[in-house]
């Protein structure tokens, strides 16, 4: 007896079986590949951290270079370095720590101290929100804790060509040599609206992105929030 492929029962049954089958296949593959994907994500994070001070193109060298030059430090809400029972700095979820901070609970923050030859930088990880989704970044500071040696940013869902420009060299490179603080020691770094502003002799100003003002504001407040979080630590090291 031929099956009536147009009957309601068949249609529903077909849809049900198909959905279950596809779900099983996709879930299986996702589980199978998870370890490898996580390893790639870890490696990419190391690469991003190093990018703030010393960009490496060769992926196979990233882990070695990271382990040789970066020391992970963890600080608590009072800016003191925590050594006992400290959570792993690398795996700390900044978003959760900022939630704790907002609620007034004790929290931890990671700092990546880079040392190679005579060069020493304090790399401050950042977390904030762009227009569509989270944005993050790593900013390398000189030991005056004001001058930026390099910055690298990432995003989860900004618009290509607009907000996603924060990952481009033209945007990141202009942070080199900029200063967070003015002569009086107050926070003064600002991202302007649009590109092509007159920046000569103004070490506290950075060009924004035309058509992506909200992402620019997001980076601006991420930098401010991040710097303020680490301020007490920076002062204690200084």
């Amino acid at each position: 007896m031929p099956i009536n492929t147009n009957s309601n029962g068949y249609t529903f049954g077909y849809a049900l079986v198909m959905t279950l089958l596809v779900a099983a296949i996709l879930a299986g593959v996702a589980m199978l590949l998870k370890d490898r994907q996580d390893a790639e994500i870890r490696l990419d994070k190391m690469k991003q951290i190093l990018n703030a001070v010393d960009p490496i193109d060769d992926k196979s060298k990233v882990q070695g270079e990271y382990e040789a030059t970066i020391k992970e430090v963890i600080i608590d809400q009072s800016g003191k370095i925590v050594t006992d029972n400290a959570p792993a700095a690398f795996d700390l979820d900044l978003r959760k720590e900022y939630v704790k901070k907002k609620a007034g609970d004790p929290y931890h923050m990671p700092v990546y101290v880079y040392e190679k030859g005579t060069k020493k930088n304090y790399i401050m990880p950042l977390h904030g929100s762009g227009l569509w989704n989270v944005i993050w970044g790593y900013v390398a500071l000189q030991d005056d804790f004001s001058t930026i040696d390099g910055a690298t940013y990432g995003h989860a869902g900004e618009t290509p060509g607009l907000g996603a420009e924060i990952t481009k060299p033209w945007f990141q490179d202009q942070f080199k040599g900029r200063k967070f603080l003015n002569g009086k020691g107050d926070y003064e770094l600002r991202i302007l609206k649009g590109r092509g502003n007159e920046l000569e002799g103004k070490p506290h100003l950075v060009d924004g992105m035309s058509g992506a003002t909200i992402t620019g504001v997001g980076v601006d407040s991420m930098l401010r929030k991040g710097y303020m979080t680490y301020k007490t630590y920076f002062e204690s090291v200084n």
Partner: protein
Amino acid sequence: MSQVAEAAVKKSEPLFSPKNRRLLTDPLDDNNPITVQVLGICSALAVTTQVKPALVMAICVVVVCSVANLVISLLRKGIPSRIRMIVQLVVIASLVTLVDQILRAFLFEVSQQLSVFIGLIITNCIVMGRLEAFAMGNKPWPAFLDGIGNGLGYGAVLILVAMFREFFGAGTLMGYKLMPQAAYDMGYMDNGVMATSTAAMFLIGIFIWIQRSRNTKLVDVS
């Protein structure tokens, strides 16, 4: 499923008969998905700044298009006609998800670069168009070839556009510097327009122009 098995057994013509070969070659020129059917333009403008992402995108579309065509063709007699579009979409979406997961595990940087565009293969009109127009009414083997052909036709244009854009926009190909330093010293500059999607639109326009002036079959006489 018995009908499907029967259909597979009944194959009598050779695997690469002239008719089957045309399925592969037609989309490369006479029936190119981009320049003739004008499908998949969005991603052709977006992922063609460099050759490498364009190449990966092309491979992904070839894989998704051919396997989706094959699967739908195998299932074609069992698919309830009222939900056939949904079935097609589920097949495409799961294949794209698979490709995306594999890229994330093995080609992380490229997957970051292609970001949303891999997911957008799902909405690429070429894939769905071939399923509805060809795979639903043809045997698995021709459908598979048709998928490869259309994927290649799409990929060829993508890579060609990317080659022009990367060379004139950055002086490189596949990341290797090809434009000699002497040219820069003499005042040559990389063309910034080539880095924007506007350039891709002009390039595709020029391709269509050249193709139509060469290929008389494409000239619209109405």
